[in-house]
């Protein structure tokens, strides 16, 4: 059994900042692929990818995490996102290469938005752990 501090995280860039997802939820870092769009009304979803015969929704968390000024997304980090009792693959566009890291969790300050589930201290950098399910449920926009 691993302690919370031993957990691995995938660190991903969105412009100048880096964020983290628990490594156990990440299944793939995909090269740029054509996002396919169709009319819908769900915020933050920009379309879907077809990966190995499966349809994966694309959730552009950068719109919330860094705002509209985020640079072009280069890769898709594909992660399992738990929603109610189901899990679903979700693609998160990121702006550069990702890194696997194990780092101690730092205590939350209490001022973080609800879509941040924790903090990682990586060197001098404090990296926010993203609760992807909050974006999918729309709570990140509340």
């Amino acid at each position, binding site marked *: 059994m691993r302690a919370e501090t031993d957990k691995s995280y995938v660190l991903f860039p969105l412009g100048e900042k880096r964020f983290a997802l628990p490594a156990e939820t990440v299944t793939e870092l995909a090269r740029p692929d054509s996002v*396919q*769009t*169709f*009319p*819908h*009304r*769900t915020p933050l*979803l920009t379309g*879907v990818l*077809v990966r190995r*015969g*499966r*349809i*994966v*929704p694309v*959730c552009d968390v950068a719109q919330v995490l860094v705002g509209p000024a985020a640079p072009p997304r280069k890769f898709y980090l594909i992660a*399992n*996102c738990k*929603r109610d009792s*189901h*899990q*679903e*693959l*979700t693609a998160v566009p990121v702006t550069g290469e990702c890194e696997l890291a194990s780092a101690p969790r730092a205590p939350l300050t209490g001022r973080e938005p609800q879509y941040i589930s924790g903090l990682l201290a990586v060197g001098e950098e404090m990296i926010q752990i993203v609760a992807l399910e909050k974006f*999918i*449920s*729309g709570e990140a926009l509340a």
Partner: protein
Amino acid sequence: MRSAAKSRLQPPRQVAREDVIVFAVGGFRFAISAAAVKEIRSMEGLHAFTLGGISVQIAKLKHTLERGGVTYFVVDAAQHFQLLPSQPSRVLILRNAPTAVLVDSTDRIMEISALHALPRAFTHEERSWYRGLAVVNGAVVPVVNHHAFLNKAELEILRSGLERVHGEVMV
């Protein structure tokens, strides 16, 4: 355990083969079950629908069409899907419903071999708009729920509005 976990991750996919009609609206492609369409025709014979306050309540309802003694209520698909106004040229008359749909163009009838469930991440109106997603030559095409063009609530508004205006049931 592995298969159970895998099944939780994979959205349901119906494998029954189905003929669909591919059509376009506002630059997007859609598919509709061929069995749901009675006829595809030009826009000739459409009459503007401006009855009472109904056309305000159901803004996407733009026209009516008389066909074989039946009145069809013609829905603008671009407005239904909340797209910018498009340039419709064809009317899909639905089977077993007093509904027809204005679309920009029809492409072809083709067979799809699987209908993927709409990912659960999609949570808004699209859940009623679509039965699922098909992959056609690598492209994802939503398969529309034809019952949603005029749903039960909208048909009820039509029914009661027409009763009020004409004093008779027409729907």
